[in-house]
Protein backbone atom coordinates (compact mmCIF):
# COMPACT_ATOMS: atom_id res chain seq x y z
CA UNK A 1 0.00 0.00 0.00
CA UNK A 2 1.57 3.25 -1.16
CA UNK A 3 1.18 6.31 1.02
CA UNK A 4 2.07 9.92 0.23
CA UNK A 5 4.05 11.72 2.93
CA UNK A 6 2.91 15.37 3.17
CA UNK A 7 6.19 16.88 4.37
CA UNK A 8 8.69 14.59 2.68
CA UNK A 9 6.63 14.89 -0.55
CA UNK A 10 7.34 11.35 -1.63
CA UNK A 11 5.21 8.25 -1.86
CA UNK A 12 6.40 5.13 -0.06
CA UNK A 13 5.11 1.70 0.90
CA UNK A 14 3.33 1.83 4.27
CA UNK A 15 4.18 -1.77 5.19
CA UNK A 16 7.86 -1.20 4.50
CA UNK A 17 7.82 1.66 7.01
CA UNK A 18 5.92 -0.42 9.58
CA UNK A 19 8.49 -3.18 9.17
CA UNK A 20 11.46 -0.86 9.49
CA UNK A 21 9.93 0.72 12.60
CA UNK A 22 9.30 -2.69 14.13
CA UNK A 23 12.80 -3.96 13.50
CA UNK A 24 14.41 -0.87 14.95
CA UNK A 25 11.96 -0.98 17.88
CA UNK A 26 13.09 -4.48 18.82
CA UNK A 27 16.70 -3.32 18.91
CA UNK A 28 15.68 -0.30 20.94
CA UNK A 29 14.00 -2.39 23.60
CA UNK A 30 16.84 -4.94 23.72
CA UNK A 31 19.82 -2.65 23.90
CA UNK A 32 18.48 0.69 25.09
CA UNK A 33 19.63 2.35 21.90
CA UNK A 34 17.20 4.62 20.08
CA UNK A 35 17.95 2.81 16.85
CA UNK A 36 18.44 6.08 14.99
CA UNK A 37 21.89 5.05 13.81
CA UNK A 38 20.25 2.24 11.85
CA UNK A 39 17.09 4.01 10.78
CA UNK A 40 18.72 7.17 9.37
CA UNK A 41 20.65 5.35 6.63
CA UNK A 42 17.66 3.10 5.92
CA UNK A 43 15.32 6.04 5.44
CA UNK A 44 17.83 7.74 3.12
CA UNK A 45 17.96 4.52 1.17
CA UNK A 46 14.20 4.38 0.53
CA UNK A 47 14.25 7.95 -0.75
CA UNK A 48 13.20 10.12 2.18
CA UNK A 49 15.01 13.49 2.01
CA UNK A 50 17.78 13.50 4.66
CA UNK A 51 16.50 16.55 6.55
CA UNK A 52 13.04 14.99 6.92
CA UNK A 53 14.48 11.59 7.83
CA UNK A 54 16.62 13.00 10.64
CA UNK A 55 13.85 15.16 12.14
CA UNK A 56 11.06 12.61 11.88
CA UNK A 57 13.16 9.87 13.28
CA UNK A 58 13.84 11.92 16.40
CA UNK A 59 10.08 11.96 16.87
CA UNK A 60 9.78 8.23 16.35
CA UNK A 61 12.56 7.55 18.87
CA UNK A 62 10.57 9.46 21.50
CA UNK A 63 7.77 6.93 21.09
CA UNK A 64 9.84 3.76 21.11
CA UNK A 65 11.99 4.97 24.01
CA UNK A 66 8.94 5.94 26.03
CA UNK A 67 7.40 2.54 25.43
CA UNK A 68 10.68 0.86 26.37
CA UNK A 69 11.27 2.94 29.49
CA UNK A 70 7.84 2.03 30.87
CA UNK A 71 8.81 -1.63 30.73
CA UNK A 72 12.05 -0.79 32.52
CA UNK A 73 10.29 1.30 35.20
CA UNK A 74 8.21 -1.78 36.03
CA UNK A 75 11.38 -3.71 36.70
CA UNK A 76 12.98 -0.77 38.56
CA UNK A 77 15.95 -0.71 36.22
CA UNK A 78 15.98 3.06 35.68
CA UNK A 79 18.38 5.23 37.68
CA UNK A 80 16.37 8.47 37.70
CA UNK A 81 18.99 10.52 39.48
CA UNK A 82 21.72 9.49 37.04
CA UNK A 83 19.29 10.02 34.16
CA UNK A 84 18.59 13.61 35.18
CA UNK A 85 22.29 14.43 35.58
CA UNK A 86 23.03 12.97 32.13
CA UNK A 87 20.07 14.82 30.70
CA UNK A 88 21.25 18.24 31.89
CA UNK A 89 24.52 17.68 30.07
CA UNK A 90 22.63 16.23 27.10
CA UNK A 91 20.33 19.20 26.52
CA UNK A 92 23.21 21.70 26.64
CA UNK A 93 25.14 19.49 24.25
CA UNK A 94 22.21 19.13 21.84
CA UNK A 95 21.79 22.91 21.63
CA UNK A 96 25.51 23.27 20.83
CA UNK A 97 25.35 20.45 18.30
CA UNK A 98 22.51 22.09 16.36
CA UNK A 99 24.67 25.21 15.92
CA UNK A 100 27.54 23.13 14.55
CA UNK A 101 25.12 21.27 12.28
CA UNK A 102 23.72 24.48 10.77
CA UNK A 103 27.20 25.96 10.24
CA UNK A 104 28.37 22.87 8.38
CA UNK A 105 25.21 22.62 6.34
CA UNK A 106 25.92 26.09 4.99
CA UNK A 107 29.22 24.88 3.52
CA UNK A 108 27.82 21.60 2.23
CA UNK A 109 29.93 19.25 4.31
CA UNK A 110 27.32 18.01 6.72
CA UNK A 111 26.97 14.66 4.94
CA UNK A 112 30.64 13.94 5.22
CA UNK A 113 30.83 14.98 8.87
CA UNK A 114 27.82 12.84 9.78
CA UNK A 115 29.27 9.82 8.04
CA UNK A 116 32.74 10.30 9.49
CA UNK A 117 31.19 10.63 12.96
CA UNK A 118 29.33 7.39 12.40
CA UNK A 119 32.37 5.50 11.14
CA UNK A 120 34.71 6.75 13.89
CA UNK A 121 32.33 6.33 16.82
CA UNK A 122 30.69 3.14 15.70
CA UNK A 123 34.11 1.68 14.91
CA UNK A 124 35.69 2.54 18.26
CA UNK A 125 32.67 1.58 20.34
CA UNK A 126 31.91 -1.59 18.44
CA UNK A 127 35.50 -2.83 18.62
CA UNK A 128 35.86 -2.02 22.33
CA UNK A 129 32.61 -3.73 23.25
CA UNK A 130 33.32 -6.73 21.10
CA UNK A 131 36.75 -7.36 22.61
CA UNK A 132 35.56 -6.75 26.15
CA UNK A 133 32.52 -9.01 25.92
CA UNK A 134 34.55 -11.80 24.33
CA UNK A 135 37.01 -11.57 27.18
CA UNK A 136 34.21 -11.69 29.76
CA UNK A 137 32.63 -14.71 28.14
CA UNK A 138 35.98 -16.53 27.93
CA UNK A 139 36.73 -15.74 31.56
CA UNK A 140 33.33 -16.94 32.67
CA UNK A 141 33.91 -20.22 30.85
CA UNK A 142 37.42 -20.68 32.27
CA UNK A 143 36.39 -20.11 35.88
CA UNK A 144 32.70 -20.69 36.52
CA UNK A 145 31.59 -19.24 39.82
CA UNK A 146 34.40 -16.70 39.95
CA UNK A 147 33.16 -13.20 40.85
CA UNK A 148 32.84 -10.84 37.87
CA UNK A 149 35.64 -8.29 37.69
CA UNK A 150 34.86 -4.91 39.19
CA UNK A 151 34.92 -2.34 36.44
CA UNK A 152 34.50 0.86 38.39
CA UNK A 153 37.81 1.39 40.06
CA UNK A 154 39.17 4.39 38.19
CA UNK A 155 41.16 6.45 40.68
CA UNK A 156 40.90 9.84 39.00
CA UNK A 157 37.15 9.72 38.56
CA UNK A 158 36.71 9.13 42.28
CA UNK A 159 39.02 12.03 43.11
CA UNK A 160 36.62 14.58 41.53
CA UNK A 161 34.45 16.85 43.70
CA UNK A 162 30.61 17.13 43.86
CA UNK A 163 30.09 13.50 44.78
CA UNK A 164 26.59 12.12 44.61
CA UNK A 165 25.09 8.82 45.60
CA UNK A 166 23.32 6.95 42.79
CA UNK A 167 21.47 4.28 44.74
CA UNK A 168 19.91 2.35 41.87
CA UNK A 169 23.27 1.98 40.15
CA UNK A 170 25.04 1.34 43.46
CA UNK A 171 27.55 4.11 42.73
CA UNK A 172 29.01 6.95 44.74
CA UNK A 173 30.77 9.30 42.34
CA UNK A 174 31.18 12.88 41.24
CA UNK A 175 28.47 14.50 39.10
CA UNK A 176 31.11 15.81 36.69
CA UNK A 177 31.75 12.62 34.63
CA UNK A 178 28.04 12.00 33.93
CA UNK A 179 27.57 15.66 33.00
CA UNK A 180 30.47 15.52 30.55
CA UNK A 181 29.29 12.21 29.10
CA UNK A 182 25.81 13.70 28.66
CA UNK A 183 27.22 16.82 27.01
CA UNK A 184 29.41 14.93 24.52
CA UNK A 185 26.57 12.57 23.63
CA UNK A 186 24.21 15.52 23.23
CA UNK A 187 26.52 17.26 20.75
CA UNK A 188 27.00 14.08 18.73
CA UNK A 189 23.31 13.23 18.90
CA UNK A 190 22.34 16.58 17.40
CA UNK A 191 24.98 16.38 14.67
CA UNK A 192 24.25 12.77 13.77
CA UNK A 193 20.49 13.11 14.14
CA UNK A 194 20.15 10.23 16.60
CA UNK A 195 19.28 9.76 20.24
CA UNK A 196 22.85 8.83 21.01
CA UNK A 197 22.06 5.60 22.87
CA UNK A 198 24.74 3.64 21.08
CA UNK A 199 27.34 6.03 22.45
CA UNK A 200 25.63 6.54 25.79
CA UNK A 201 25.28 2.84 26.65
CA UNK A 202 28.97 1.97 26.34
CA UNK A 203 29.96 5.24 28.02
CA UNK A 204 27.79 4.39 31.00
CA UNK A 205 29.18 0.87 31.23
CA UNK A 206 32.86 1.59 30.66
CA UNK A 207 33.37 5.16 31.86
CA UNK A 208 30.82 5.46 34.67
CA UNK A 209 30.91 1.78 35.60
CA UNK A 210 27.15 1.34 35.85
CA UNK A 211 25.62 -2.16 35.92
CA UNK A 212 24.43 -3.19 32.43
CA UNK A 213 20.84 -3.89 33.50
CA UNK A 214 20.37 -0.33 34.81
CA UNK A 215 22.15 1.22 31.84
CA UNK A 216 19.48 0.34 29.29
CA UNK A 217 16.54 1.85 31.17
CA UNK A 218 18.48 4.94 32.19
CA UNK A 219 19.71 5.51 28.65
CA UNK A 220 16.17 5.24 27.29
CA UNK A 221 14.97 7.68 29.96
CA UNK A 222 17.37 10.40 28.90
CA UNK A 223 16.96 9.67 25.16
CA UNK A 224 13.25 10.55 25.43
CA UNK A 225 14.05 14.08 26.48
CA UNK A 226 16.99 14.70 24.16
CA UNK A 227 15.02 13.50 21.10
CA UNK A 228 11.86 15.37 22.16
CA UNK A 229 13.98 18.52 22.36
CA UNK A 230 15.44 17.99 18.90
CA UNK A 231 12.02 17.13 17.43
CA UNK A 232 10.74 20.50 18.61
CA UNK A 233 13.84 22.27 17.27
CA UNK A 234 13.46 20.66 13.85
CA UNK A 235 9.70 21.27 13.73
CA UNK A 236 10.00 24.96 14.55
CA UNK A 237 13.11 25.88 12.54
CA UNK A 238 13.19 23.57 9.53
CA UNK A 239 9.56 22.31 9.28
CA UNK A 240 10.91 18.86 8.52
CA UNK A 241 8.98 16.61 10.92
CA UNK A 242 6.64 14.41 8.87
CA UNK A 243 3.78 13.31 11.07
CA UNK A 244 2.52 10.54 8.81
CA UNK A 245 6.00 9.09 8.42
CA UNK A 246 6.48 9.31 12.19
CA UNK A 247 3.19 7.58 12.95
CA UNK A 248 3.95 4.69 10.60
CA UNK A 249 7.43 4.25 12.03
CA UNK A 250 6.29 4.49 15.62
CA UNK A 251 3.44 2.00 15.32
CA UNK A 252 6.03 -0.57 14.34
CA UNK A 253 8.51 0.93 16.79
CA UNK A 254 6.46 0.79 19.99
CA UNK A 255 5.39 -2.80 19.39
CA UNK A 256 8.96 -3.75 18.56
CA UNK A 257 10.26 -2.05 21.70
CA UNK A 258 7.97 -4.13 23.91
CA UNK A 259 9.06 -7.34 22.22
CA UNK A 260 12.69 -6.26 22.43
CA UNK A 261 12.53 -5.45 26.14
CA UNK A 262 11.31 -8.99 26.81
CA UNK A 263 13.98 -10.58 24.65
CA UNK A 264 16.57 -8.43 26.43
CA UNK A 265 15.62 -9.81 29.85
CA UNK A 266 16.19 -13.37 28.69
CA UNK A 267 19.71 -12.71 27.40
CA UNK A 268 22.83 -12.50 29.53
CA UNK A 269 24.57 -9.13 29.78
CA UNK A 270 27.63 -10.29 27.83
CA UNK A 271 25.51 -11.80 25.09
CA UNK A 272 23.54 -8.57 24.86
CA UNK A 273 26.73 -6.57 24.55
CA UNK A 274 28.35 -8.82 21.97
CA UNK A 275 25.22 -8.71 19.78
CA UNK A 276 25.13 -4.93 19.98
CA UNK A 277 28.85 -4.81 19.19
CA UNK A 278 28.42 -6.94 16.07
CA UNK A 279 25.56 -4.80 14.86
CA UNK A 280 27.45 -1.56 15.47
CA UNK A 281 30.49 -2.92 13.61
CA UNK A 282 28.29 -4.00 10.71
CA UNK A 283 26.83 -0.54 10.21
CA UNK A 284 30.28 1.00 10.60
CA UNK A 285 31.71 -1.31 7.93
CA UNK A 286 28.94 -0.44 5.49
CA UNK A 287 29.43 3.30 5.98
CA UNK A 288 33.21 3.06 5.69
CA UNK A 289 32.80 1.06 2.48
CA UNK A 290 30.58 3.81 1.03
CA UNK A 291 33.18 6.46 1.83
CA UNK A 292 36.06 4.56 0.25
CA UNK A 293 34.47 3.17 -2.90
CA UNK A 294 33.66 5.42 -5.82
CA UNK A 295 29.92 6.17 -5.79
CA UNK A 296 27.99 5.40 -8.98
CA UNK A 297 26.64 8.95 -9.09
CA UNK A 298 29.19 11.66 -8.31
CA UNK A 299 26.66 14.47 -8.22
CA UNK A 300 24.01 15.13 -5.62
CA UNK A 301 21.10 17.57 -5.64
CA UNK A 302 20.06 19.58 -2.65
CA UNK A 303 17.72 22.43 -1.87
CA UNK A 304 19.59 25.66 -2.53
CA UNK A 305 21.21 27.04 0.59
CA UNK A 306 22.09 30.38 -0.93
CA UNK A 307 25.70 30.42 0.19
Amino acid at each position, binding site marked *: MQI*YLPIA*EVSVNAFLLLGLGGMVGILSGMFGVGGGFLLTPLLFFIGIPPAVAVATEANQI*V*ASSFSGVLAHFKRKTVDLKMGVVLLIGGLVGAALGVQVFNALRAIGQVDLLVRLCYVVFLGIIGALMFVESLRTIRRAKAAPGAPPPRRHHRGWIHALPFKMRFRTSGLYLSAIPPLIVGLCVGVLAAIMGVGGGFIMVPAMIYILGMPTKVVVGTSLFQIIFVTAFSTLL*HATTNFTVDMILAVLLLIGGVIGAQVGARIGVKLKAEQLRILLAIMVLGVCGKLAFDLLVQPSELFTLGAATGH
Partner: protein
Amino acid sequence: MKQTLLILALLLAPFAAAAQEETVVAGLSQNVVSITANFNGSEILIFGAVQRYAPVPEGSPLEVIITIEGPDRPVTVRRMDRRYGIWMNTEAVDVDAAPTFYAVATTNPFREVISDTEDLRHRISIPRAIRAVGTNTEHQRDFTDAVIRIRTDEDLYQVLEGSVMLRNETLFDTSFRMPANLVEGDYTARIFLTRGREVVSSYETDITVRKVGLERMIYTLAHERPLVYGLLSLAIAIAAGWLASAVFRYIRMGG
Protein backbone atom coordinates in the same frame (compact mmCIF):
# COMPACT_ATOMS: atom_id res chain seq x y z
CA MET B 1 0.05 59.40 -33.13
CA LYS B 2 -1.99 56.89 -31.18
CA GLN B 3 -4.61 56.90 -33.89
CA THR B 4 -2.05 56.22 -36.60
CA LEU B 5 -0.81 53.23 -34.68
CA LEU B 6 -4.32 51.94 -34.21
CA ILE B 7 -5.08 52.19 -37.92
CA LEU B 8 -1.80 50.48 -38.70
CA ALA B 9 -2.65 47.67 -36.32
CA LEU B 10 -6.09 47.23 -37.84
CA LEU B 11 -4.60 47.11 -41.30
CA LEU B 12 -2.02 44.53 -40.30
CA ALA B 13 -4.38 42.32 -38.32
CA PRO B 14 -5.63 40.19 -41.23
CA PHE B 15 -2.04 39.48 -42.26
CA ALA B 16 -1.18 38.27 -38.77
CA ALA B 17 -4.16 35.96 -38.87
CA ALA B 18 -3.14 34.68 -42.26
CA ALA B 19 0.35 33.88 -41.01
CA GLN B 20 -1.19 31.79 -38.23
CA GLU B 21 -3.68 29.88 -40.36
CA GLU B 22 -3.48 26.79 -38.21
CA THR B 23 -4.36 27.11 -34.54
CA VAL B 24 -4.54 24.54 -31.80
CA VAL B 25 -7.58 23.73 -29.68
CA ALA B 26 -6.90 21.39 -26.80
CA GLY B 27 -8.25 19.83 -23.65
CA LEU B 28 -6.92 17.93 -20.63
CA SER B 29 -8.41 14.94 -18.90
CA GLN B 30 -7.95 16.83 -15.65
CA ASN B 31 -6.86 20.34 -14.66
CA VAL B 32 -6.46 19.52 -11.00
CA VAL B 33 -4.29 16.80 -9.51
CA SER B 34 -5.22 16.10 -5.90
CA ILE B 35 -2.55 14.60 -3.70
CA THR B 36 -4.35 12.41 -1.21
CA ALA B 37 -2.83 10.11 1.41
CA ASN B 38 -2.75 7.19 -1.00
CA PHE B 39 -1.60 9.25 -3.99
CA ASN B 40 0.44 7.05 -6.27
CA GLY B 41 1.07 9.18 -9.31
CA SER B 42 -1.40 10.36 -11.87
CA GLU B 43 -2.11 9.89 -15.54
CA ILE B 44 -2.95 12.99 -17.56
CA LEU B 45 -4.44 12.72 -21.01
CA ILE B 46 -3.96 15.68 -23.34
CA PHE B 47 -5.91 15.80 -26.58
CA GLY B 48 -6.83 18.37 -29.16
CA ALA B 49 -7.39 19.33 -32.75
CA VAL B 50 -5.90 21.69 -35.32
CA GLN B 51 -8.32 24.37 -36.44
CA ARG B 52 -7.81 25.79 -39.91
CA TYR B 53 -9.71 28.05 -42.29
CA ALA B 54 -7.76 27.00 -45.36
CA PRO B 55 -6.78 23.67 -46.91
CA VAL B 56 -3.86 21.79 -45.35
CA PRO B 57 -0.70 23.57 -46.50
CA GLU B 58 1.66 21.82 -48.86
CA GLY B 59 5.25 21.01 -47.92
CA SER B 60 6.62 19.73 -44.67
CA PRO B 61 4.21 17.75 -42.44
CA LEU B 62 2.61 19.03 -39.26
CA GLU B 63 4.25 18.01 -35.98
CA VAL B 64 3.04 18.37 -32.39
CA ILE B 65 5.08 18.92 -29.23
CA ILE B 66 3.44 18.78 -25.81
CA THR B 67 5.18 19.67 -22.54
CA ILE B 68 4.21 19.65 -18.88
CA GLU B 69 6.35 21.72 -16.56
CA GLY B 70 6.32 21.78 -12.76
CA PRO B 71 7.14 24.83 -10.63
CA ASP B 72 10.73 26.11 -10.84
CA ARG B 73 12.92 25.77 -7.78
CA PRO B 74 16.58 26.64 -7.23
CA VAL B 75 18.85 23.62 -6.78
CA THR B 76 22.35 23.20 -5.39
CA VAL B 77 24.34 20.58 -7.26
CA ARG B 78 27.39 19.16 -5.50
CA ARG B 79 30.15 17.08 -6.99
CA MET B 80 32.14 14.49 -5.07
CA ASP B 81 35.84 13.93 -5.52
CA ARG B 82 38.36 11.68 -3.89
CA ARG B 83 40.29 13.63 -1.24
CA TYR B 84 42.52 12.00 1.37
CA GLY B 85 41.27 8.62 0.21
CA ILE B 86 37.59 9.30 0.84
CA TRP B 87 34.81 10.59 -1.36
CA MET B 88 33.57 14.00 -0.34
CA ASN B 89 31.72 17.02 -1.78
CA THR B 90 34.24 19.38 -3.31
CA GLU B 91 32.48 21.67 -5.76
CA ALA B 92 28.98 23.14 -5.64
CA VAL B 93 26.98 25.00 -8.27
CA ASP B 94 23.67 26.75 -7.69
CA VAL B 95 21.23 26.26 -10.53
CA ASP B 96 18.93 29.29 -10.40
CA ALA B 97 15.81 27.55 -11.54
CA ALA B 98 15.13 24.00 -12.55
CA PRO B 99 11.60 22.68 -13.01
CA THR B 100 10.68 20.12 -10.36
CA PHE B 101 8.92 18.15 -13.08
CA TYR B 102 9.34 18.29 -16.84
CA ALA B 103 7.94 16.04 -19.53
CA VAL B 104 8.10 16.61 -23.25
CA ALA B 105 6.26 14.46 -25.77
CA THR B 106 6.58 14.75 -29.55
CA THR B 107 5.22 13.12 -32.70
CA ASN B 108 8.71 12.34 -34.05
CA PRO B 109 12.36 12.47 -32.86
CA PHE B 110 13.00 15.84 -31.25
CA ARG B 111 15.57 17.15 -33.77
CA GLU B 112 13.16 16.50 -36.65
CA VAL B 113 10.26 18.46 -35.21
CA ILE B 114 11.90 21.68 -34.04
CA SER B 115 14.98 23.78 -34.79
CA ASP B 116 17.52 24.89 -32.21
CA THR B 117 16.50 28.53 -32.56
CA GLU B 118 12.86 27.77 -31.93
CA ASP B 119 13.79 25.49 -29.04
CA LEU B 120 15.85 28.30 -27.51
CA ARG B 121 13.05 30.81 -27.97
CA HIS B 122 10.30 28.68 -26.44
CA ARG B 123 12.51 26.75 -23.97
CA ILE B 124 11.13 23.39 -24.97
CA SER B 125 13.86 20.75 -24.57
CA ILE B 126 14.94 19.81 -21.02
CA PRO B 127 18.39 21.51 -21.09
CA ARG B 128 16.72 24.73 -22.27
CA ALA B 129 14.16 24.59 -19.46
CA ILE B 130 16.90 24.76 -16.81
CA ARG B 131 18.32 28.18 -16.06
CA ALA B 132 21.79 28.58 -14.63
CA VAL B 133 23.38 31.96 -15.04
CA GLY B 134 26.18 33.74 -13.25
CA THR B 135 28.02 30.65 -12.05
CA ASN B 136 31.78 30.68 -12.15
CA THR B 137 32.81 27.14 -12.85
CA GLU B 138 34.17 25.91 -16.15
CA HIS B 139 32.26 22.64 -15.82
CA GLN B 140 28.83 24.28 -15.77
CA ARG B 141 27.62 21.79 -18.34
CA ASP B 142 28.52 18.78 -16.15
CA PHE B 143 26.40 20.16 -13.34
CA THR B 144 23.27 20.85 -15.40
CA ASP B 145 23.71 17.46 -17.06
CA ALA B 146 23.78 15.92 -13.59
CA VAL B 147 20.46 17.57 -12.69
CA ILE B 148 18.90 16.13 -15.85
CA ARG B 149 20.42 12.68 -15.32
CA ILE B 150 19.36 12.38 -11.67
CA ARG B 151 15.85 13.66 -12.28
CA THR B 152 15.43 11.48 -15.36
CA ASP B 153 16.30 8.47 -13.20
CA GLU B 154 13.57 9.50 -10.77
CA ASP B 155 11.05 9.85 -13.63
CA LEU B 156 10.76 13.55 -12.88
CA TYR B 157 12.15 14.44 -16.31
CA GLN B 158 10.74 12.53 -19.24
CA VAL B 159 11.46 12.72 -22.94
CA LEU B 160 8.75 10.87 -24.83
CA GLU B 161 9.70 11.09 -28.49
CA GLY B 162 7.06 9.75 -30.83
CA SER B 163 4.43 9.32 -28.14
CA VAL B 164 2.03 11.96 -29.50
CA MET B 165 -0.48 10.36 -31.88
CA LEU B 166 -1.48 12.64 -34.77
CA ARG B 167 -4.32 11.59 -37.07
CA ASN B 168 -4.96 13.18 -40.50
CA GLU B 169 -2.85 16.16 -39.48
CA THR B 170 -5.83 17.23 -37.37
CA LEU B 171 -6.47 15.22 -34.22
CA PHE B 172 -3.77 14.51 -31.67
CA ASP B 173 -3.52 12.98 -28.21
CA THR B 174 -0.97 11.76 -25.71
CA SER B 175 -0.84 10.75 -22.07
CA PHE B 176 1.66 11.64 -19.38
CA ARG B 177 2.45 9.57 -16.34
CA MET B 178 3.15 11.89 -13.41
CA PRO B 179 5.15 10.10 -10.70
CA ALA B 180 4.17 9.85 -7.03
CA ASN B 181 6.95 12.14 -5.81
CA LEU B 182 5.30 15.27 -7.18
CA VAL B 183 5.80 18.69 -5.65
CA GLU B 184 2.79 20.89 -4.99
CA GLY B 185 2.26 23.93 -7.24
CA ASP B 186 1.04 25.29 -10.54
CA TYR B 187 2.06 23.16 -13.48
CA THR B 188 1.92 24.36 -17.06
CA ALA B 189 0.94 22.31 -20.08
CA ARG B 190 2.07 23.69 -23.45
CA ILE B 191 1.23 22.50 -26.93
CA PHE B 192 3.23 23.57 -30.00
CA LEU B 193 2.38 22.93 -33.64
CA THR B 194 5.40 22.99 -35.92
CA ARG B 195 5.98 22.82 -39.67
CA GLY B 196 9.43 22.62 -41.16
CA ARG B 197 10.85 22.78 -37.61
CA GLU B 198 9.24 26.21 -37.05
CA VAL B 199 6.52 26.82 -34.46
CA VAL B 200 3.27 27.82 -36.18
CA SER B 201 0.93 27.86 -33.20
CA SER B 202 0.99 27.31 -29.48
CA TYR B 203 -1.43 26.86 -26.61
CA GLU B 204 -0.91 27.00 -22.86
CA THR B 205 -3.00 25.90 -19.90
CA ASP B 206 -2.51 25.32 -16.18
CA ILE B 207 -2.66 22.15 -14.15
CA THR B 208 -3.00 22.64 -10.41
CA VAL B 209 -1.32 20.09 -8.17
CA ARG B 210 -2.58 20.36 -4.58
CA LYS B 211 -2.48 18.35 -1.43
CA VAL B 212 -5.99 17.74 -0.10
CA GLY B 213 -7.62 16.41 3.04
CA LEU B 214 -5.30 15.11 5.73
CA GLU B 215 -2.22 15.89 3.66
CA ARG B 216 -3.29 19.52 3.30
CA MET B 217 -4.10 19.80 7.00
CA ILE B 218 -0.78 18.41 8.19
CA TYR B 219 1.24 20.50 5.74
CA THR B 220 -0.55 23.71 6.70
CA LEU B 221 -0.25 23.05 10.41
CA ALA B 222 3.46 22.23 10.11
CA HIS B 223 4.19 25.50 8.33
CA GLU B 224 1.80 27.88 10.05
CA ARG B 225 1.91 26.62 13.65
CA PRO B 226 5.19 24.79 13.92
CA LEU B 227 5.25 24.77 17.72
CA VAL B 228 1.75 23.31 18.00
CA TYR B 229 2.66 20.82 15.31
CA GLY B 230 5.87 19.79 17.09
CA LEU B 231 4.07 19.38 20.41
CA LEU B 232 1.28 17.41 18.73
CA SER B 233 3.86 15.10 17.14
CA LEU B 234 5.41 14.53 20.55
CA ALA B 235 2.02 13.92 22.14
CA ILE B 236 1.25 11.29 19.51
CA ALA B 237 4.62 9.65 20.12
CA ILE B 238 4.18 9.55 23.89
CA ALA B 239 0.60 8.29 23.61
CA ALA B 240 1.61 5.54 21.19
CA GLY B 241 4.48 4.51 23.45
CA TRP B 242 2.22 4.33 26.48
CA LEU B 243 -0.52 2.51 24.59
CA ALA B 244 1.83 -0.18 23.34
CA SER B 245 3.20 -0.67 26.84
CA ALA B 246 -0.32 -0.89 28.33
CA VAL B 247 -1.53 -3.31 25.66
CA PHE B 248 1.44 -5.60 26.19
CA ARG B 249 1.00 -5.56 29.97
CA TYR B 250 -2.66 -6.48 29.49
CA ILE B 251 -1.75 -9.33 27.13
CA ARG B 252 0.79 -10.65 29.61
CA MET B 253 -1.58 -10.44 32.55
CA GLY B 254 -4.36 -12.02 30.51
CA GLY B 255 -2.15 -14.83 29.23
